[in-house]
């Protein structure tokens, strides 16, 4: 499962693009390109996608520092990458939009271990409930972004990969 040098370069570029995209869209609350990129990396690289995913997480930590809030990034993307890995044969747009939308909707729920670490278990429920409007925006925006962009970007990346593999 070790990537070669060329793959490592591609993966690093994709991870850096993911981070840059997130920073560029930071002013739009909970509208982000990261979920789309995680799914794309997973369909393109399979299990090797863990490399670019964690390069991206490392970039987050390097720029924003290691703190309780980005601790969530250490595990949360796996909840998207693992289903995406098993959905790789699926080529229609709707299933990918559903996966991305569901991930956005459940983002707050998946943050519960971190809420507990920050404020204790008694604060988990109120913190999660107060974040639901953000999760709804996250879910709808993730759904729409994936519906529009996932299939064309997947086709593009697969074409680029096929071109470089051909002698």
């Amino acid at each position, binding site marked *: 499962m070790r990537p070669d040098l060329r793959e490592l370069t591609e993966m690093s570029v994709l991870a850096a693009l993911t981070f840059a995209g997130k920073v560029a869209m930071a002013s739009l609350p909970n509208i*982000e390109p990261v979920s789309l990129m995680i799914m794309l990396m997973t369909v393109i690289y399979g299990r090797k996608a863990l490399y670019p995913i964690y390069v991206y997480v490392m970039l987050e930590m390097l720029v924003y520092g290691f703190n309780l809030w980005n601790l969530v990034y250490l595990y949360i993307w796996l909840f998207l990458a693992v289903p995406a890995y098993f959905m790789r044969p699926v080529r229609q747009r709707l299933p990918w939009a559903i996966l991305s939308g569901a991930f956005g*909707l459940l983002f707050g729920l998946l943050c519960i271990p971190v809420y507990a670490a920050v404020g204790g278990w008694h604060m988990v429920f109120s913190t999660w409930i107060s974040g639901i409007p953000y999760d709804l925006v996250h879910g709808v925006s993730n759904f729409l972004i994936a519906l529009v962009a996932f299939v064309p970007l997947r086709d593009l990346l697969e074409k680029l990969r096929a071109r470089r593999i051909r002698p």
Partner: protein
Amino acid sequence: MAAQKTNKRRWLIALVALIVVAAILAGLYFLFRADPPEGDKTVTVKVVHADQSEKEFTYETDDEYLGELLTEEGLVEGETSEYGMYITKVDGEQAVFETDNAYWALYENGEYASTGADQTVLDNGDEFSLVYTKDAS
């Protein structure tokens, strides 16, 4: 052809399930969110600056949430983040996390607030503190 049709049906059911989950989440929010009391309230906000100097502000307001009160009063500036309002500047002092690991911590009646300022409900007599905090890491 039949398999394709079944597949399409399966994904449509998944889409309906997704919408149901969204509706349940919205329902939970409206059922359990903290209901802001109506009418005038008096609240105090203590600001602890980086040099440990303290200032106290008292407000009489009919605003429902702390974020709208502090923004209207010009005490804070902030941006919207994935976890709610992220306060960047208080009483003229900026906290820069990227370079100084510094942020404005919000306390509500002595306890670390579990919500962002924009979702912190105002009750009569509430005491808030905004403390310039440096993360050791």
